[in-house]
């Protein structure tokens, strides 16, 4: 019974939240890694692209809620997400035409594109705040829990409760579907293959008749979709605030780099590695150990490696370690 209690407490406070957070990071990191692999620069505007897509989704969600359209137990935002994706696609195509294409035609160095993307980041930052404001926005509706802590306790008779929020379930399911679609697209379709070819060797791809403009456009469209899905899932699960999306840039980049920039599989693994380390290292293990350890050996203190204030520091440290010992990332991406 004690082992079960320990397991439930661990799932409630570590495994379930980390799984949902990891899925959100993985989707974000996939977008960063695709840009890096195909357009060959680190897109610092990614966090704010996520915020923009989410903002459009929120606005459509509010309109739907006002019109009485809903999905019953599921959040209305799922229904509004396609509109958010379309809005975000329009945005990235406009920025690409207005900004990035100029530098691409000039064959500017990646570092210049990075700085350009920082400029785009600031503009998007302002745009999102201008439209929806800098405050917290809540847009989750529908059933809040798949199973709440209290029901779980009553069902199982255990001392510890396990809560799984609807948004956590939706996050994991959506992430699996999106990733499956993406890999099918990259590995099975003609366009996907041409993207990979372009990524592996640009000159060779051009020689074999691949249209570079089309590859770039499709990449941006996919990135916009990924960013919006990641942003909406994060906002549903936690809350939407422009500044937190800007802050997400660090763990998202850490995930992409740890997994290996330019390698989609690496981005997913990286997302989960970062999420699980952030949560497990800052978790206080007293409760779990209290159940598992033999009588009399229960810990007195909290058994917390780092205070939760250092959450972001954890992603930094992992990033540094990986860059020092394996600069190409765990899954052999491109060297940074």
């Amino acid at each position, binding site marked *: 019974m004690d082992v079960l209690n320990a397991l439930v407490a661990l799932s*409630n*406070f*570590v495994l379930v*939240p980390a799984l949902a*957070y990891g899925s959100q990071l993985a989707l974000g990191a996939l977008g960063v890694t695709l840009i890096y692999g195909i357009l060959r620069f680190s897109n610092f505007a990614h966090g704010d692209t996520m915020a923009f897509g989410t903002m459009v989704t929120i606005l459509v969600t509010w309109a739907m809620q006002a019109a009485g359209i809903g999905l019953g137990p599921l959040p209305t935002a799922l229904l509004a997400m396609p509109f958010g994706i379309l809005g975000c696609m329009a945005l990235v195509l406009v920025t690409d035409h207005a900004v990035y294409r100029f530098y691409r035609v000039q064959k500017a160095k990646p570092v210049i594109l990075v700085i350009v993307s920082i400029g785009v980041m600031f503009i998007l930052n302002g745009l999102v705040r201008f439209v929806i404001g800098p405050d917290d926005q809540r847009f989750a509706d529908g059933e*809040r*829990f798949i199973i*709440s*802590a*209290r029901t*779980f*306790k009553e069902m199982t008779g255990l001392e510890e*409760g396990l*809560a799984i*929020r609807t948004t956590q379930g939706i996050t994991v399911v959506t992430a699996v579907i999106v990733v499956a679609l993406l890999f099918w697209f990259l590995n099975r379709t003609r366009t996907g293959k041409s993207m990979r070819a372009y990524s592996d060797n640009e000159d060779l791809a051009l020689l074999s008749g691949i249209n570079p403009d089309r590859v770039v456009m499709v990449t941006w469209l996919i990135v916009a979709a990924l960013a919006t899905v990641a942003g909406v899932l*994060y906002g549903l*699960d*936690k*809350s*939407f*605030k422009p*500044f*937190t999306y800007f802050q997400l840039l660090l763990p998202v980049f850490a995930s992409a780099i740890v997994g290996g920039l330019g390698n989609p599989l690496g981005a997913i693994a990286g997302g989960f590695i970062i999420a699980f380390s*952030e*949560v497990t290292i*800052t*978790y*206080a*293990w*007293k*409760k*779990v150990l209290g159940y598992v350890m033999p009588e009399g050996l229960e810990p007195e203190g*909290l058994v*917390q490696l780092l*205070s*939760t*204030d250092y*959450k972001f520091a954890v992603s930094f440290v992992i990033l540094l370690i990986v860059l020092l010992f394996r600069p190409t990332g765990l899954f052999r991406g491109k060297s940074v």
Partner: protein
Amino acid sequence: MKKLLMATAVAALSAGAASADDHAVKLGIILGFTGPIESLTPHMAGGAELAMTEVTDSGALLGGKAVEPVRADSTCTDAGAASAAAERLITSEGVKGIMGADCSGVTGAILSNVAVPNGMVMISPSATSPALTTADDNGLFFRTAPSDARQGEVLATVLMERGIESVAVTYTNNDYGKGLADSFAAAFEAAGGSVTTTAAHEDGKADYSAEVGALASAGGDALVVAGYVDQGGPGVIRAALDTGAFDLFVLPDGMIGAALEETFGSDIDGSVGTVPGTESEGADTMLEMATAAGIDGTSPYVGESYDAAALLMLAMQAAGSAEPGDYSAKILEVANAPGEQIFPGELGRALEILAGGGDIDYVGATDVELIGPGESAGSYREIVIDGGKITTAGYR
């Protein structure tokens, strides 16, 4: 009617100004007229000026002297600007006492940089930091607002009486949160309770599940959330409810607000809290007087401001002198028992009693009772969340 009153007040003030110098006593009002609490300060200044007008009109202060208010801006945050403003009040305006300052940080700065070197008396209506209790003030600093240390004690008593004996504490990471959490923990442990852990939370984050995970691991009957209702506080409560970590919360003044009812409804039924408040009859009188004068009497710290200004003038009368060095020792005397009880609107009567050699016990708008080194004992309203509403359980 309102306009007529305003006109009389203005006329009285300008009459006082015209016959300044020997016939008038100048009092400084130093509040953050610009800055983070600029929406509150005009009402606070209005409260203080109400008391001054009342005293001027009575013609009983020190043989018929008028009182002239001089406003200055403390900015609430900029210690340098606040000190310069206070310096100007004393050296170029020649004020005989200062009603202010408002925020704890600038109040401490003015006290040590300006008031103590110049031997000037200060009465703050709203600085609540526990650090001001032990500030080196040469007996010149008083406040009509209670220290947060007092709230910690009240909260601890409330919990012990309700049989909650073990709690986890989380506080917003600033002077207010830290001071309150420390004073609560000390008082609670002294009363025999146990604090399982104390952890800070940063405001403005999207997700507090990690913080709540650590708090839950430490355990406890209830979670004390010393935060802000418009900031991270509700996020912490939401995460604690979602994970089933806590369902009973203890909410100090920063967490009490209408937003709490809207966000959680009956999810947090049974949770308790404290917020400054009093049921004295003075509060009602004050509200009527303020409304008649065109001031929003429900705005925070208006009564405290009235009381601060009143105490300055009553102490002058008791000492028979407007010099700070003479009357500073009299402030505790007029504020506390024994003596005739004085409510708002009775300042004229109080002045006459004092002139006749009698003793008064100033009650004022906020039930003034100065303790320790001259700060309000503080009365708090104990609240309970019942059926999704904030209800009053009593006063202490």
